[in-house]
């Protein structure tokens, strides 16, 4: 069953395969270049959302499953994390999975490298900074990292269970806090799914505001990340100025809706806030100033040899590994993979306005930093362009109830990468299942992989260059 981004189809049209066929189908698709966006268990079936970046089409397949099935992971590393999740949540065993440990309920028996000179370093879950909790277990030989295993789950809130049976009044608030720094991204994915399920047409002006808000969120986070990268190598000028600039971008979102993180702005049907011409002009002025300041603050990074010396060749990922692991977002684009939901699966404002895909070829910290800077420039241009040509009209359509027995896959390119929401409705139009896949879910394993053979002292830098969400993963 092929469909577009945020298009809803009747559940009955999804092929219901035997598990053997399902497995063959998924493996074939992945071999042919499609990738796994979501993979979950619901109603006695395994569901896989496959995305074809070239054609911009999504494919849903499902297979009947009993207690166990032959694991996909040995032939399709992308499925690694997903299969561990399915096993943890439903107890269905993927036989032959190479490392079947729970991903969210912390566990003790980590992978160990034996040897007299090998030592283990345990970091977290409580860290020295005010950051989210997660446990990192390094197997080291001197300063060299042989293996890194990441144990998450300390932020588990049961968000998906809270959404089940919805939508209700609290659903949208759960969405806004799935990953606090990606409020706009997640609510947008939710709103797209809701609009598709209920057949609501969103006014053009609302689409434009959503685009502006999503890009402002990207700008604030990319800018903050570049500053944090500078801070991690002890380069103060960029660290300080980007810290302030991040605040400037957050304040622009606040100017629009009163919340620096865009809470309360996007709702199914449209947006809740509009701005009068004076405020739009103010926004444009601020954007221009921030563009100027960030160009000089970030420019210092590329001009400073000592910073380049730290960024280059640190945490390198090859394009092949990136494709095999199914990474998304800036981490994938830094490996030369042109993968961007805004470009491949355009929806909303992005169907009308193109944002070029920003890539780098090096796959190291420099690549991930540089992609962020390219994206900042393009987001700035996009936001300016959109604000200068805002469509007129209303900003919200009245929301309607969801149609029963349908399924919708909604993708959004959040600042960390692809956000995938899959909504299945029951006979009454309520969520029988609501599956959320944050970009972090795809990328955490990429971070562990990028650390192999690296210096343990470079881990914080490498970690920051991915800057993944703990709560977005743990849900």
């Amino acid at each position, binding site marked *: 069953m092929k469909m577009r981004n945020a298009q809803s189809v009747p559940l009955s049209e999804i092929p219901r395969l035997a598990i053997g066929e399902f497995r063959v189908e998924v493996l074939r698709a992945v071999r042919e270049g499609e990738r796994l966006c979501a993979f979950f268990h619901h109603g006695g079936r395994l569901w896989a959302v496959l995305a074809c970046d070239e054609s911009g089409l999504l494919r849903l397949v499902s297979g009947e499953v009993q207690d166990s099935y032959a694991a996909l992971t040995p032939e399709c590393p992308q499925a690694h994390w997903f299969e561990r999740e399915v096993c943890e949540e439903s107890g269905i065993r993927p036989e032959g999975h190479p490392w079947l440990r729970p991903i969210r309920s912390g566990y003790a028996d980590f992978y160990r490298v034996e040897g007299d000179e090998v030592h283990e*370093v345990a970091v977290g879950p409580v860290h020295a900074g005010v950051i989210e909790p997660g446990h990192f277990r390094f197997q080291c030989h001197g300063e060299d990292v042989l293996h890194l295993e990441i144990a998450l789950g300390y932020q588990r809130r049961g968000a998906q269970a809270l959404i089940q049976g919805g939508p209700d009044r609290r659903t949208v608030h759960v969405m806004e806090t799935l990953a606090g720094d990606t409020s706009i991204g997640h609510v947008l994915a939710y709103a797209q799914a809701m609009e598709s399920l209920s057949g609501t047409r969103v006014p053009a002006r609302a689409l434009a505001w959503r685009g502006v808000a999503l890009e402002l969120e990207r700008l604030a986070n990319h800018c903050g990340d570049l500053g944090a990268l500078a801070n991690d190598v002890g*380069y103060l000028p960029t660290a300080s100025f980007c810290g302030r600039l991040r605040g400037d971008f957050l304040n622009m979102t606040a100017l629009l809706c009163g919340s620096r993180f865009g809470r309360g702005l996007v709702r199914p049907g449209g947006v809740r806030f509009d701005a009068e011409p004076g405020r739009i002009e103010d926004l444009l002025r601020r954007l221009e100033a921030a563009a100027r300041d960030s160009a000089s603050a970030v420019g210092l990074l590329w001009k400073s040899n*000592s910073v380049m010396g730290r960024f280059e060749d*640190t945490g390198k990922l090859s394009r092949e590994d990136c494709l095999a692991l199914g990474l998304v977002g800036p981490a994938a684009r830094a490996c030369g993979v042109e993968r961007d939901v805004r470009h491949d699966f355009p929806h909303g404002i992005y169907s009308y306005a193109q944002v070029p895909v920003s890539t780098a070829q090096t796959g190291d910290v420099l690549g991930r930093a540089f992609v962020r800077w390219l994206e900042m420039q393009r987001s700035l241009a996009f936001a300016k362009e959109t604000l200068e040509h805002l469509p007129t009209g209303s900003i919200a359509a009245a929301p309607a109830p969801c149609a029963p027995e349908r399924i919708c896959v909604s993708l959004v390119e959040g600042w960390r990468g692809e956000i995938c929401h899959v909504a299945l409705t029951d006979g009454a139009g309520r969520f029988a299942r609501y599956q959320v896949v944050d970009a972090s879910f795809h990328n955490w394993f990429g971070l562990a992989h990028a650390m192999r053979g690296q210096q343990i002292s470079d881990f914080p830098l490498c970690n920051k260059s991915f800057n993944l969400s703990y709560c977005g993963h743990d849900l």
Partner: protein
Amino acid sequence: METGLILSSAGGIAGAALAAPLLSGVINRTKAVFAGRRGQPLLQAYHDIIKLLGKGAVYSRTTTWVFRAGPVIQFSCAALALALLPMGSRPALLAFPGDFICLAGLLALMRFFLMTAALDTGSSFEGMGASREAAFSALAEPVFLLSLAVLARLTGALSLSGMASRLALHPAEGSGPVLALTALALFVVFLAENARVPVDDPNTHLELTMIHEVMALDHGGPDLAFIQYAAQLKLWIMGILVVNALGLGGRGGWACAGGMAALAVLIGIVESTMARLRLLRVPQLMIGAGALSLLALLLTLVRP
């Protein structure tokens, strides 16, 4: 030695003991100016030490007397080293031929107890910090001794006080290049030994990247105060050596103080304008400094 001279030297030591924490204040203020911030008070380091002295200490059950002895021994070593140090035009309280080797020995002893106290905790972080400290200081120490040997050869004096006064008052003809090379080598050693950028980052909160800070992570209260104060004294001691190598030290109290202030500002500028080196690159920096001091030594040997 006359009583007056002894009193004067003791006054120098007291002045250094009082002024040492101010250096970090000047460094931090310089960094703040570069970053466009107001920065912490100049006297913040003093407040920190006083605050820490008023606290209790917590000891892990896995630690032994080595852990408790560490801070006191470090402080004692640093304080003793002060007595060997000529400051301004005052000679050191204790000056004897070859005292610079004794100074290097005291600093090594200080480091030894910092490292053993860190290893005593059994923490993987502190172990890594101690291992880095051992690796880098093994490279920094020869450069340090070599640089002082150059100064000894150049001035013909075998005590630090003799070197300082001759460098300031009777600089040998044409010794400029030698002094510049030696001062540069000493400055690199100074940055490395005092855990400054580009070797270490005194501001970081990331345990995996730290060298010096990580070894003090399990110390608290008065113990931490002693470690911090000992580190500030060490910063002062090595700073004085750099200032003396430039011939500023022996010219009197004000020249010496001015030199120290300029040095602190210079560190602030270095830390504001460059990133920290990758740990793998630090040995190259130290070898580079070693090459500078070796070149300086060669120059002194071929001089008539």
